[in-house]
Every structure is written in C-alpha cells, then in structure tokens.
C-alpha cells in the first residue's frame, strides 16, 4: 500500500478554509519567457509570520477580483518567512499574478497537499528528474536535501527544458554545480549553436546517471507525457514502482477535496497528492481521459 504521507504541516487556516488571508508581494523576478517568481510575505500585523510548508506542497493564490489558482511553493522550506512561488502566465489569473508588483496584495490559502517523501529518501540515492516548470515544485526538495546533505546518498538532478532561454533558476543551478556533492545534467529540446550543453530529451540522461537503482528513490515532475517517458526510463534502469514518486496536476477550485474538480480516478490530487508514489497511480496514468 501507499506509504504514510509526510507528517502534516500546520497550516494557517482560518475557521473557514475557503477564506484567504492577505499576503503581499515582496519581490517579482522573471525566470524565463512567461515564467515569473513571486516572493510573498504574510503579515498578521505583528511582524512577518513564518509559514512552514513541506517540499511539494502548493498554495492557492488569489488576485482579488480576478480569481484563484494553485501555485507550487518553489522556495526554501528552511526559510519559511518568505513564500516563493513560480508561476507560468497562461490564463487570466496567472497573467494577473505575473503583473503584480512589490506591495500588491495577494489572497493566500494553504499550504495544501502531500509533498515529496523526504523521510523516505534518507539513506538513499535521490534521482530528481524535472521537466520544464516541473523544476519549481522540486526546488524545495533540493534545498532540503542539500541542507541535510549527509543524510542522503548520491543526489542527481536531471533537468530538461525547451531551450536554453527556458532554463529556470540558472544561477542557482550553476551554484549547485560548483558543489562536488551533487550530479547535475541539464538538457534542452533544441538550442542555437552557441549552446555547449546537452540537446535531447531528459529521459536520455537517466541511463547515464550515476545512482544505485536498488537503493535509489526518484522524484519526477514535469508535463505528464514527459513523466510517463521518464518513469519508463527509470524502471528500465532498475527502479521499482515503489521507489518512484511523481507530482500530478489537475483543475482545482478548492484544494480541500470538496469541489470535485481534481479527481483522478479515486484520488483527489489536491489532498491525496499532488505527489503520488507511482504504484498508486500507475494504472491511471495509462488511461486516456481519466
């Protein structure tokens, strides 16, 4: 059966979990074409409050008068005073979020969801396979792994992006590269001739990565098609279905299991996920339009 979820992180829910608290934008940065990172802080009136969250969790962010969307927490869980969210501007709400500036109010509810299996990873090699925006919900896991480095075996980050311009968190990736205790391979789907790195799908990096399949755990996040291919490659490398975790995404209106929109077979992605162990959702991933 599925492993017990990570211990619940105390949320900041008012008596009605559908009512947001008000946060403010502290900083806004552009990470890639149409991708922005917003740093938010929650202030209850007596100083900026800490907002603990687990890697892999998400918040529901409201642009007042426009709407609400689920956005992954992409910051450092060991620094809970500032809530970092990475948003791709595709729809009305996310575009409105991306236009907010320092000082602007944002409605906030959360954190929600089951996060990455950080406790399970202790003592094991950790293989992180990220595609596109999928690196955002994985970054908190990376921060936590690197903060407690001695607790884990090898750490491998395999990251695929569309093109070099679309690579997220470049400076951070470079600073991680300078460490000697993490293997990082970045690849793009295509590049101009000045690119000196890998070109090809991220799944091709898996067979070359240095990890021990019997003792490894894999964390996968990206577009669903990419995750399916990555999981096939990970299994081919010897990882079992109980050692592979992925983060799913579905339409969400409430994030608390009441609106019904995020159902994926029997599970609610907002509440039973978004992180799932592969064996739990394996048969569902193979079904079209489920």
């Amino acid at each position, binding site marked *: 059966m599925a492993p017990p979820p990570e211990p619940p992180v105390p949320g900041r829910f008012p008596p009605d979990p559908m009512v947001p608290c008000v946060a403010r934008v502290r900083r806004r940065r552009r990470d890639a074409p149409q991708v922005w990172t917003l740093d938010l802080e929650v202030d209850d009136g007596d100083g900026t409050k800490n907002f603990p969250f687990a890697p892999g969790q998400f918040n529901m962010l409201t642009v007042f008068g426009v709407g609400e969307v689920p956005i992954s927490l992409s910051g450092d869980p060991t620094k809970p005073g500032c809530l970092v969210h990475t948003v791709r501007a*595709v729809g009305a709400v996310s575009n409105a979020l991306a236009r907010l500036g320092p000082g602007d109010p944002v409605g906030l509810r959360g954190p929600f969801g089951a996060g990455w299996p950080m406790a399970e990873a202790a003592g094991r090699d950790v293989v992180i396979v990220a*595609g596109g925006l999928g690196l955002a919900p994985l970054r908190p896991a990376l921060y936590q792994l690197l903060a407690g480095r001695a607790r884990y075996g090898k750490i491998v980050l395999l990251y695929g992006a*569309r093109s070099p311009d679309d690579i997220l968190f470049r400076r951070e990736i470079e600073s991680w590269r300078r460490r000697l205790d993490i293997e990082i391979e970045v690849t793009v789907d295509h590049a101009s*001739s000045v690119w000196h790195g890998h070109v*090809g*799908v991220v799944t*091709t990096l898996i067979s070359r990565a240095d990890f021990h399949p019997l003792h490894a755990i894999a964390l996968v996040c990206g*577009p669903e098609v990419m995750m399916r291919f990555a999981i096939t490659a990970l299994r081919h490398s010897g990882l079992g279905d109980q050692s592979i975790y992925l983060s799913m995404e579905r339409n969400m209106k409430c994030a608390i299991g009441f609106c019904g929109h995020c159902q994926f077979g029997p599970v609610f992605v907002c509440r039973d996920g978004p992180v799932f162990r592969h064996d739990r959702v394996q048969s569902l991933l193979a079904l079209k339009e489920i």
Partner: protein
Amino acid sequence: MEGLERIVKEHPFFAGLEEGFLNLVCGCAKNVRFEAGQYLFREGEPADQFYLIRHGRIALELTAPGRGAIIFQTLTEGEIVGVSWVIPPYRWTYDARALDLLRAIAIDAACLRQKCEADHDLGYEMMKRFLPILVQRLQATRLQILDVYGAPA
C-alpha cells in the same frame, strides 16, 4: 591493428561482437580525432563513414534561414554518430560538430556495406545493433516534437 581491435571491441556499440566479425569490421576502421568546433561532416555530403565516439561530445545541427544553426541532439561517448550511410542516397541529412576535443573510430561505410553484402550474417549482426538505437532515437524524437514544455498556443 591489435590496439584498434581492442578499442572497437570495447565500444558499447560492438560489445559482444564475435571475433570473426570484429576482424571484418576493423578492416574498415581507423582512429580519428577532431578539435573542438570542427565539423565531422555537413548536410548533403556523401555519408561515407560513421563514427563510434570514444571521448568527447558532438552536436547535431540543422540550419534554417532566419534561425541560424539549431542543435537538435547531442551525443557523447559510447554512442554512435551517423545512420545515413545505411540507406541510399548515402548523404548526410544534418551537420555534426565536435563540441569538445573528440576521439572516435571512423568506420568506412562503403567498405562495411560491401562486407555486409558478402556476408549476410555480418549484415544481420550490424542491423541488430543499429535498429535499437534508431528506435530509441525515434521515441525520444517524438517526445521532443511534442514540445511539452512550451506554453500552449
């Protein structure tokens, strides 16, 4: 020649190749080296050899007007470069540029094609090794074309 045999035998593409076939292949093989930035071949040129990469990386490129050269694949040690030598008109369909100092084994295509015609068992052995690579590249290419990371139109 012995040193070459050892190198060819150790390359993953020819792993497990039977002695007799190995000799046949080595008869068409030679050591080559390219400097970083040098082109192994260009689109349209005769595909008269293929390469087993021993050390270094290669970028496969296509050039489109207004877009310049676009890298669509990189290959690295243990992999092979070039499949157009297998099928007529035996011409390269892209450019291949060394990204770093490159050491490789070049195998003369005409030579190998001739030997495969003469010995179909050798031919079959070559096809058995090529096809999985082609299939894997096709599957990876499909995922690439889907452009899954891009924002939807």
